[in-house]
């Protein structure tokens, strides 16, 4: 009987412990994120995916907003990007509102998908913010129909980071890298390889970063604004893949298989150039022993009508949920800080190295600072200048599906399959996927 009693005791203790956890939690939950009335503090909850970047940006915005609204409080919940998307989808698909935050961070290629799949879920910002103050291509990504959803945040304006010591050794000066085409880039790469033994760049057939940069630099994308595949009868796409194959064939690119290998290749000094978004700066600066050796030039352009020496890779925006209890407060908070404060963007750059698309901030001292790591070049001034040249495109709903279809065929293209036939295959595959 003693044993029975002890088991019974254990079970009841476990149950009461569980119940205790349960009730205290649900209490704190209602008191925390959803209740607005009770306390004098007005609390807004936001989901973001990098505590040292976009989470930190929100904290800067909070400080600025608190100057005029001392009772304002912000809670940032950090989680991985994929986790955030999974959670958001689970909540929206289940139609369960509790637990959802007031503000979420959205990766730009997902904007259309979310707004279309979950109508009336996200707040309309069309007349809450002066969108003429932002780089037009960034606003284009947020526009669906005649409405603009969300607040433009960070951008991924691209540049060609290069090792000035390697290129000098190969006989090139900074001037030789301005305003070039990709074919010239490949020629330079061959000389660099011959004279220094270093690769010009990396290539990863499983990563669509380079093709994305090339496409946008000539104002095109994997899909049309009507969400149809944009592979056949698209001269920009054909030229992009020709250049991609040429880089691969020329032997100037070091093959890498993943992100860490890619970052490792330039941290270890194996490559002479890195074509990437401005957010790559901290990774490049991680290799402290290479200080003073790096510079940034505009990216090469496609030798085609509409091709420019500027593009974009990645970027995100802030959305407010319509069902949020603090909707108006969240909108006002974002509009007054990330949506219209030069001070915010200056601090964001100085403290976290983040670049936004807010044009008035571009002329500030923060953006004019010279970087010793980059040999005294005012890199952010250059990046922001290029950001105003990036062609605007619609990212559409099925960017990921289109990229996957392309990735599927890329090995064949690299092996020399007929390009027209391959493009038709990709188009077919994509259409099968999204039907």
């Amino acid at each position, binding site marked *: 009987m003693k044993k029975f009693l002890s088991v019974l005791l254990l079970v009841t203790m476990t149950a009461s*412990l*569980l119940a205790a*956890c349960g009730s205290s939690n649900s209490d704190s939950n209602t008191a925390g994120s959803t209740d607005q009335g009770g306390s004098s503090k007005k609390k807004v909850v936001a989901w973001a*995916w990098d505590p040292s970047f976009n989470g930190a940006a929100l904290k800067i915005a909070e400080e600025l907003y608190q100057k005029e609204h001392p009772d304002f409080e912000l809670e940032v919940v*950090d*989680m*991985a990007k994929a986790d955030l998307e999974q959670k958001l989808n689970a909540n929206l698909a289940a139609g*369960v509102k509790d637990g959802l935050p007031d503000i979420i961070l959205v990766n730009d290629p997902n904007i259309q998908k979310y707004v279309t799949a979950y109508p009336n879920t996200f707040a309309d910002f069309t007349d809450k913010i002066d969108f003429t103050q932002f780089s037009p291509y960034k606003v284009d990504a947020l526009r669906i129909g005649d409405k603009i959803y969300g607040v433009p945040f960070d951008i991924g304006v691209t540049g060609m980071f290069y090792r000035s010591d390697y290129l000098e050794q190969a006989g090139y000066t900074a001037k030789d890298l301005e305003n070039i085409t990709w074919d010239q880039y490949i020629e330079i790469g061959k000389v660099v390889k011959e004279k220094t033994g270093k690769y010009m760049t990396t290539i990863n057939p499983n990563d669509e970063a380079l093709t994305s940069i090339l496409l946008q630099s000539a104002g095109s994308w994997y899909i049309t604004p009507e969400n149809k595949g944009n592979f056949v009868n698209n001269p920009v796409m054909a030229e992009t893949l020709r250049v991609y194959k040429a880089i691969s064939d020329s032997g100037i690119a070091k093959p890498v298989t993943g992100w860490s290998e890619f970052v490792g290749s330039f941290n270890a000094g194996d490559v002479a150039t890195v074509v990437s978004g401005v957010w790559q700066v901290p990774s490049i600066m*991680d290799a402290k022993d290479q200080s003073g050796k790096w510079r940034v030039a505009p990216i090469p352009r496609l030798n085609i009508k509409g091709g420019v020496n500027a593009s974009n890779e990645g970027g995100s925006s802030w959305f407010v949920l319509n069902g949020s209890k603090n909707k108006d407060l969240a909108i006002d908070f974002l509009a007054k800080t990330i949506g219209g404060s030069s001070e915010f963007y200056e601090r964001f750059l100085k403290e976290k190295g983040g670049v936004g698309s807010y044009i008035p901030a571009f002329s500030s001292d923060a953006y004019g600072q010279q970087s010793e790591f980059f040999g005294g070049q005012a890199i952010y001034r250059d990046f922001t200048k290029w950001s105003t040249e990036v062609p605007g495109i619609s990212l559409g709903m099925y960017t990921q599906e289109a990229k996957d279809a392309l990735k599927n065929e890329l090995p064949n293209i690299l092996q020399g399959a007929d390009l027209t036939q391959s493009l038709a295959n990709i188009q077919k595959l994509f259409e099968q996927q999204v039907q």
Partner: protein
Amino acid sequence: MKKLTTMVVHLFLIVASVISLFPFVWMLMGMTNSSSEILKGKFSFGSMLMENIHKLLDMTSLGAAFWNSAIIAIIGTVGTLLLSSMAGYGFEIYHSKSKSRLFGLLMLSMMMPFAAVMIPLFRMFSGMGLLNTPTAVILPTITTAFMIFFFLQNTKSFPRELLQAGRVDGLSEWRLFTRIYMPTMKPTYAAAAIITFMNYWNSFLWPLIALQTQDKKTLPLVVSSLASSYNPDYGIIMVAIVITTLPSVLIFFLLQKQFVQGMLGSVK
């Protein structure tokens, strides 16, 4: 000839153990190096250990996450062992035709991928007001078809004579279970404890959906959020992974002997 075979076998085993130990060594070395050293592929111990640990503790509330994980894993494991062993015992000892049909149905639930039940489950827990609690993480897997099956299989080799002897001595059915069955089946419980503990400790998708505020997060969720930064610090991630791995390793070594026995069948 025999010598040659042993040599080949040993060679194979050495290669296999190097391959399976490599990730652990890499993890321990990574812990002591900076992020860019790891990316460059440095394969030796460095001097960054304390700095990585300090940075990790600054960046995350690791203590709270560890506590949350521990609560869920410990209560979940105790609950699962108790309920699943009772079910397995019941299905096997009080055997009947209708019960084995019921058991067949139960096995069917093993075929169901979790993703298919996730959304309904989420709605259900939201309706009960249990979201964002450890209970929400523990309950859905507190009895699994696999664990019941595991206990049922092991009960098949349990000598019924022991139960009969107990009945003759006037033990009630409940005490037969706690006094005779449970002590005899210790190795099975140990094996089940390791499997269940690891499942709870490492579970990711459901806690991700069910837990909503920062202070309720479990360790795997914290590690995952570290890894997705634009400029991830691999040194810090390695420290976090080592901390996350330790309890599972410890439990395994503590129960290793019983685990092996349990997998072979408890009673021989």
